[in-house]
């Protein structure tokens, strides 16, 4: 199966090329684009991005696997990432993680059978003053309690 950017994605890619002195530097933003266009960074996506940038698939794979934000496997419609670092832990993140895992019926790293939620643990989201914190897709949710998490997750379509 082959993949290709949509017209919009292609235009954005062309714009990216004008912002950097060489094609290699466009790897990270192009991988984001691929993730947005294809849902996750599949093997096909890696080959496609390598072709666009004129570098080897191995080089793209090496970059994609170094960073935590590129999903090499499909994730649910909502990627729920709960911070478990020190400031969040001090304010109850461990209990929240257990709560969400129980609510969704998945362990961290798992996806619900309906494909709606993937639960992950994050090693510091950089929002320690409003701990505990979670990120759902691009959005942060702060000062969490069990009740507020329930309300947030239940409201997602």
């Amino acid at each position, binding site marked *: 199966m082959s993949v290709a950017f949509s017209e919009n994605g292609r235009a954005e890619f062309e714009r990216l090329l004008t*912002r*950097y*002195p*060489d094609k*290699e*530097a*466009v*790897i*990270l*933003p192009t*991988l*984001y684009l691929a993730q947005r266009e294809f849902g996750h960074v599949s093997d096909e996506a890696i080959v496609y991005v390598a072709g666009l940038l004129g570098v080897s698939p191995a080089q793209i794979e*090496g*970059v994609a696997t*170094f*960073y*935590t*934000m*590129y999903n090499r496997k499909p994730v649910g419609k909502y990627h729920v990432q709960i911070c*478990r*670092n*020190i*400031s969040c*832990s*001090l*304010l*109850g993140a*461990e209990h929240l993680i257990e709560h969400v895992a129980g609510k969704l019926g998945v362990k961290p790293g798992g996806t619900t059978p309906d494909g709606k939620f993937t639960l992950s643990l*994050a*090693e*510091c*989201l*950089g*929002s*320690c*003053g*409003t*701990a505990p914190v979670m*990120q759902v897709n*691009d*959005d*942060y949710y702060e000062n969490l309690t069990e009740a507020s998490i329930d309300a947030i997750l239940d409201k997602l379509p």
Partner: protein
Amino acid sequence: METILTTHFADDGYRRIDTYRGFGGYDALRKALSMTPEGIIDEVKKANLRGRGGAGFPAGVKWGFLPKDLSRLRVLVVNADEGEPGTFKDRLIMSHGPHLMIEGIAIASFALRAHFSYVYIRGEFVREARIVDEAVAEAYAAGFLGKNILGSGFDLDLTVHRGAGAYICGEETSLINSLEGKRGWPRLKPPFPAAVGAFGLPTIVNNVETLADVPWIITHGGEKFASIGVEKNGGTRLIGVSGAVNRPGVYELPAGINLKEIIYNHAGGIKDGKELKAVIPGGSSTPVLRADEIDVSYDIESMAKIGTMAGSGGVIVIPEGTCMVRALSVLMNFYAHESCGQCTPCREGTGWLKKIVGRIEAGKGRAGDVELVLDLCDNMLGRTICPLADAAVMPAQSFIWKFREEFDRHIDEQKCPYGNRF
């Protein structure tokens, strides 16, 4: 108390260029363009502006490291990869006052004769990256970025670049590799970035807060900035207080304010009426302090005297009843996860620290484990390309030195005396 950065952060719309200009925004850039690059660098030196990213190197001195040869392009890279647990201040600047940072970048670039600048924002900060993107577009439209800025003949292109989830990319050479599209592996130094940096060009890497201070320094003069802090530490600092306090958040306070005052007066004291047990004073990698050690000036020199660091300004407050072995275990998980794997002492060492501290906490510690942790620390400290190994060692050593009895109790009793929970 005089503030430099946050004065208008509560004002509606301050992130928009019109409101920012209404408060005198970009006047400092206009003034800077009438000065010489050397004159700007002198003001920053006079200001005693120390880098706000953690290492605290004097910014003006760093700027002076660029080679004198003007035939080569130069690059200013902005480190907005805020990832040190406990630190969340640059996020505040980017979301509430992005133009402060952009104006600082424009002034610094002119001083450095850099025509290209990249803001490297941690990938998770999607919202902040959008806000900065919009602000950059506004600044281009208003003629503060781009070609022939304010008719001065100076050109500057600014690009926002998102990281993709790697704490190590906060280290400047790793950040440069990541910007170039590589794995974020730190580089051996020398050559230093000022000689060979991003895309092989002379490069200065500065933290967001450091650059956001620059417009004020140009407007009011370096001496005025220096007078706000203490000797060798000019200006204010954005101090993020998190953990068990009544009012967590970011406070802009003069460099050299007392740490106890930060926690009790500004952050409202310890949550739930508890006693203070310990403080990690400058982000998760800085050596922990006991409650009786915090009556100290929060400046780089004073903190060094008591064996710790003000670091990136992240004060983490730990209340009574917290298991310090568990707290350390959380930190060791982090460093093991974030080690880039390039240097053996760090890759293996952080993994072992995580494993041994974890088993002590789980009640499976063995006699000699504490000594083993300390021995591992000795074999990691200063033996790697970048300071990530040191960043794991400093909490490990200091937690043991200051709370040794808790580690011993875990091993003697073969359980966590605190019930394995926070």
